[in-house]
C-alpha cells in the first residue's frame, strides 16, 4: 500500500486490467453486443477516464467489471477482468460479493436512485461495514460517521439518522461516495458521478474525489461524456465509440493531438468559452448506428469524413506514441488535428506529423 515512487506506476503491474471484454445482451431482437473487445489498464493512484456518447458501452463496461449486469439478459461473453491478477469474470457470485464494496467501490450517476429512500443514511452505510469489516452494529455506525466526516458532510452524527430525501443532491452524492470508499477500495468506478449535479456542486465533488484519491491512493475509473471533466480529472483517457475503443492514451496527448477522426470530431464540436460567438460549430454528421445494425469493419465509417474501402475491414489497433493507441486504418494519412485552443500546449504536440513543415 505504501509506494515511494508513484510516477513509475505506468511500468508496474496494473491494479485492474480489462482484456478483450465482450458483453452481450439477449433481447427480443436477438443478441446485441454492447461492448466488443475493450481493453485497458488501471494503475494505483491514477485516474482513467472513459469518454463517449450515450450508447457507446461505457456504463456497460463498468457494470461488467463490477459484475452488476442486469440479469438474466446481460452476459460477459468473452475476455478477462483482472483485479490484482485474479479474473473476476470467473469468480463465483459469493466470492464476487467479497470483492464488491471492499476492494472495488462504485459511485453511481443518480444519487437519489443509488440510495434506498426508506433507510437512514447511517443504516445504508453501516451495511457496507457489517458486510466487510465488523459484526458490531455500533462500531459500524461509528465508522459510518467517520467516513461521512471525511467526505465533508457537516454534522455527520446527525446526518446518519436522516433519510436520503432530507439531503441536497450534492450531499447525497457525497454519501454515495462515502459508501464507495467505506472500505478503502483499491479501485473506484465512478459512472457519471457529477452529471446530475450543478456546475458549482460538480466542482465541489470533483475536488473531493481528487483530495480523497491523494489521501487514499485508489485508482479511479471515471466514466463521463463531459470532455471538460476528463481534462480536469484524468491522467489517461479511453475514447469509446459504439462498443469499441476508438483511441486511448495520456490525457494531454488525446486533447492536443487526437489521431482518431471521431476524437477529432468530438473535440472540435464542443462549444468553448473562447470561441467566436455565433460561428457555426464543427459537427460530426449523422448519428451513432444502432447496435443491431452496426456496419462491418470500422464502426465510425458512416460518419467519417476520411472513409475509404479499407474501412470495411476491422481496424487494427496501432501504437501512435507511448501509451497512445488508435483503432483506425488511416490515422497516418488523415490531416493532423489543429488545436486552435491551447496556445500554451507543449510544442511536440503541434509538430506531430505535419507534412507541410518537413
Amino acid at each position, binding site marked *: 500500500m505504501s509506494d515511494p515512487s508513484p510516477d513509475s506506476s505506468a511500468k508496474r503491474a496494473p491494479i485492474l486490467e480489462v482484456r478483450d471484454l465482450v458483453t452481450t445482451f439477449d433481447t427480443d431482437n436477438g443478441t446485441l453486443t454492447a461492448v466488443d473487445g475493450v481493453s485497458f489498464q488501471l494503475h494505483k493512484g491514477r485516474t482513467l477516464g472513459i469518454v463517449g*456518447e*450515450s450508447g457507446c458501452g461505457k456504463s456497460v463496461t463498468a457494470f461488467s467489471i463490477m459484475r452488476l449486469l442486469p440479469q438474466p439478459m446481460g452476459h460477459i461473453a468473452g475476455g478477462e477482468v483482472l483485479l490484482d491478477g485474479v479474473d473476476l469474470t470467473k469468480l463465483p457470485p459469493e466470492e464476487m460479493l467479497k470483492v464488491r464494496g471492499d476492494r472495488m467501490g462504485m459511485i453511481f450517476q443518480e444519487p437519489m436512485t443509488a440510495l434506498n429512500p426508506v433507510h437512514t443514511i447511517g443504516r445504508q452505510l453501516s451495511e457496507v461495514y457489517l458486510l466487510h469489516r465488523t459484526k458490531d452494529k455500533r462500531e459500524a455506525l461509528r465508522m459510518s460517521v467517520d467516513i461521512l466526516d471525511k467526505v465533508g458532510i457537516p454534522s455527520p452524527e446527525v446526518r446518519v439518522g436522516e433519510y436520503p430525501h432530507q439531503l*441536497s*443532491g*450534492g*450531499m447525497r452524492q457525497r454519501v454515495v461516495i462515502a459508501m464507495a470508499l467505506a472500505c478503502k477500495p483499491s479501485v473506484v468506478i465512478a459512472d457519471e458521478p457529477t452529471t446530475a449535479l*450543478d*456546475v*458549482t*456542486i*460538480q*466542482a*465541489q465533488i*470533483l*475536488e473531493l474525489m481528487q483530495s480523497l484519491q491523494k489521501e487514499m491512493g485508489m485508482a479511479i475509473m471515471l466514466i463521463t*461524456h*463531459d*470532455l*471538460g*471533466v*476528463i*481534462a*480536469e*480529472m*484524468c491522467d489517461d483517457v479511453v475514447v469509446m465509440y459504439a462498443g469499441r475503443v476508438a483511441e486511448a492514451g495520456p*490525457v*494531454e496527448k488525446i*486533447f*492536443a493531438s487526437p489521431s482518431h477522426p471521431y476524437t477529432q*470530431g*468530438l*473535440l472540435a*464540436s*464542443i*462549444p*468553448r*468559452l473562447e*470561441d467566436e*460567438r*455565433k460561428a*457555426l*460549430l*464543427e*459537427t*460530426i*454528421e449523422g*448519428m*451513432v448506428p444502432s447496435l443491431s445494425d452496426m456496419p462491418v469493419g470500422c464502426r465510425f465509417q458512416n460518419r467519417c469524413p476520411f472513409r475509404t474501402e479499407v474501412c470495411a475491414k476491422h481496424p487494427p489497433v496501432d501504437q501512435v506514441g507511448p501509451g497512445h493507441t488508435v483503432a483506425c486504418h488511416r490515422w497516418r494519412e488523415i490531416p493532423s488535428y489543429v488545436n486552435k*485552443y*491551447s496556445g*500554451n*500546449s*507543449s510544442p511536440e504536440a503541434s509538430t506531430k506529423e505535419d507534412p507541410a513543415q518537413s
Partner: protein
Amino acid sequence: MSTPSDQSPAPLLEVKDLQMHFPVREGILLRAKKSCRAVDGVNLTVAPGETLGLVGESGCGKSTLGKTIVRLYKPTGGQIIFQGDDLAHEHGSSLKAHRRELQMIFQDPVESLNSRHTVGDIIAEPFVIHKMGDDAWRKKRVRELLDKVGLPANAAERFPFEFSGGQRQRIGIARAIALEPKLIVCDEPVSALDVSIQSQVLNLMLELQRDMNLSYLFIAHNLAVVKHVSDRIAIMYLGRLVETADAETIYRAPKHPYTRALISAIPEPDPTKKKQRIVLQGDVPSPINPPSGCPFHPRCPHATDRCKAEVPLLRDVGETGQQIACHYDL
C-alpha cells in the same frame, strides 16, 4: 433600467419586475401558508434578432421565468411587454394572438411531442389552432418546415419514437418556427443531447435565426453553450438576476462573485490549462425560505453585514451595459 434606447431599436420583449410565486400548501387543509418565490422581480429586455442567454443552476427559476414569459403560467406580479402589449394579464383570444409570435422549444424532446400523433400532425397543429390554410397548404408547409430543419419529407408520416433525440429536437424546432414567430423561448434545448448531436442542433438554431431574424431567449445551465449562441447573457440566482452583460464581457470580466465562481467552476476541455477554481461552499438555498438580504450571501466569500440585511438591486457598472446586483465593486 429605464435607459433611453439610444442606438438600439425598441425592444421586442421587455420584462419588468416579473414575479412568479407558487403557493406551498401544507397541513391537512392544504392551506397555502408559504410561497415559493421561483421568480422574484426580474427585469430584462430582448431586442429584435437578439439572443439573450439565461444561465443559472437548477432551481434558480430560469425555466419558470421562460414559461411565465410565454404565459404558460400566470405571473403573480410585474409586466411582460411583448411588442408593446402587456401579456401579464391577458388571456383567451388576445393572448392566443400573441402566441403566434411567441413560441417555445422544450428541453426534453421525448416528453414534449405527443407520441400518438404523426410528426406531420405535430408540426401542423399550430396551423390548426390558429385556423390557418387548408389541408393541402398545411401539408406543403409541413414539408417545407421539415426541409428547413434538415429532416426528410417522409418524416411527416412517421411517429416521434422512430426518431433519435437530435431528430426529435428538430421536430420541436419545426413546430416552434411553423408560425414564423418573432421570439422563441428555448428551455435547455440541447442539454439532453450528445456532444456531436448538440453541435448539429445549435448550428440549425443559428442558421434559422439568421434566415428568419428570430430572437431567442436561450435558457441553459451550460455557460459555454450559452455564450456561443448569445449576444447578451443574464445570470440568475434564486429567482433574481445577479448580472447581465454582453456575452464576451460576462466571460472575460465577470463582476458578480457568483458569476465568477460559476465561470471558474466550468471544467474546460483542455488539460494544459490549470485554472484557479473558486469552489463555492454549500448549496443553493430553497426559494421557499430565501435568505435575507442578498440571496447569494450565505455562499459568498465576500459577504458582509450589509449583504445580510439589504437586497442589492441591479445597477450599471462600466460603459458596456453591464449590470450587477451586488453592493460592492469587487
